[in-house]
């Protein structure tokens, strides 16, 4: 049983989704998170235990990503493997058997249509046990404010890829802070830096998804 759980964690780290997935090369033909999660649940393994193994797997790949040992493709495949686990665990979240660590609202700011970075962060954060509310791309400040209203106690993540939309990011931070001073906001994206984040009054800056997880797990957990 323990072996099954460990294998799920390993498949998350390696990005092994299911038996028919050709990725990664050296695991072709082997079962992935999809099959193994089903088997584990059928064998009576608790969803909490499975989730913990996934969190550990995501943390390992996230750390390797932070160290630039792997890149976006590897992280995306891990997130995909994680999503396959979540599909099986969803009913347990809905019934409250498993509880998320908290709620994270994320979106790419107004004027910016780029979703790769935002999706990566959303997937990794979710894979680490947070409930994610994804507002999509080109999200106007008022929609972020509304989302905070609807999700009390949430933390907000803002993404931008275009340098030109950093101004909107700054505006979004201000508008959220004006109405909800206690709400924590973390920003990220290619043109961002700690300095830029500080200037716009954000509570945090993360250069990579694992940095967002560290911020969430470290500071804002209620």
């Amino acid at each position, binding site marked *: 049983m323990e072996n099954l759980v460990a294998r799920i964690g390993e498949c998350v780290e390696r990005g092994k989704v299911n038996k028919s997935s050709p990725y990664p090369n050296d695991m072709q033909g082997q079962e992935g998170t999809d099959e193994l999660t089903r088997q584990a649940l059928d064998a009576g393994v608790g969803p909490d235990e499975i989730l913990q193994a996934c969190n550990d797997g995501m943390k390992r790949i996230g750390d390797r990503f*932070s*160290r*630039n040992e*792997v*890149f*976006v*493709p*590897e992280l*995306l495949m891990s997130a*995909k493997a994680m999503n396959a686990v979540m599909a099986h665990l969803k009913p347990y979240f809905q019934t409250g058997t498993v509880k998320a660590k908290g709620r994270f609202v994320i979106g790419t700011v*107004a*004027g*910016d*249509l*780029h*979703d*790769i970075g935002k999706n990566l962060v959303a997937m990794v954060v979710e894979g680490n046990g947070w409930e994610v509310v994804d507002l999509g791309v*080109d999200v106007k400040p008022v929609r972020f404010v509304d989302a905070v209203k609807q999700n009390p106690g949430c933390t907000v993540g803002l993404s931008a890829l*275009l*340098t*030109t*939309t*950093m*101004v*909107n*990011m*700054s*505006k979004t931070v201000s508008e959220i802070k004006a109405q909800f001073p206690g709400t924590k906001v973390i920003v990220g994206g290619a*043109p961002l*830096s700690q*300095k*830029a984040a500080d*200037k*716009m009054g954000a509570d945090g800056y993360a250069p990579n998804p694992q940095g967002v997880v560290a911020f969430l797990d470290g500071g804002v957990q209620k």
Partner: protein
Amino acid sequence: MNSLLGALKSGKVLVSDGAWGTMLQERGLQPGECPELWNVTHRSDVFKVAKGYADAGADMILTNSFGGSPIKLAHYDLEGRAAELNEAAAAISREAAGSSRFVLGSIGPTGEMLMMGQVREEAVYDGFRVQAAALKNGGVDAIIVETMSAIDEAAIAIRAAKDATGLEVICTFTFDRTVTGEYRTMMGVSPAEMVKAVKDAGASIIGANCGNGFDQMIDVVRVIRKADPSTPLLVHANAGLPVVEDGKLIYTETPEMVAVKARRLAESGANIIGGCCGTTPEHIRALVKELKTA
């Protein structure tokens, strides 16, 4: 049709243009608006950006068509107008450039990832073909496939551009510095891998664009030159990383700063030097002054 490769044979460093997105933004392009639509709705503003770079002395002008692939235009429900918008982009830059300067038709990434199965390879190829053909119809001398991070998409874009136009194709990737001090794209592609892949696909000029400013670009050029000492190399560097001050975007590298660094870029092996995000006609004027004299 002017040959860029021919012009490089003299060994002189050529100067390319600067940013488009940030310049159009200054002219009132709103976040969330489709920049390529401006080629028909705000033709004179787009023309003034192109003309600004021509007047600054750039040897070549790009086109306002970075996001002009049908896949990208579909975000604005404009995919059906891809040919029209790209042709207009090329015509505007051609008019500004006259016949003595080159016009390079800009093609940027679709924003979709092939490896994740978000989009089919054939759809990407067909889209880039439409875009490249329209740019040629509008009068470009060469195609520049830029800001790439994935080998597969870049190779498809180069092939599509070659097949559709027969023109010279330039391809530039965007590299970041890793914690170990190497350079990789966000997809993990190294400069050496980029060089081999884009040349195999048919590009005759290679290079890098965007990124963290002129300093890192000097490093990137050195790394590319280690992998490939001779293929003509183009760079478009950002004017540093921006910060937001009083609701305005401020780029940290001034024209004077980048002029000095451009000299070092040339010494490191760059053959064509221009700017990316945050650079202005003033930056290009400074580059021309630095690189064309002495």
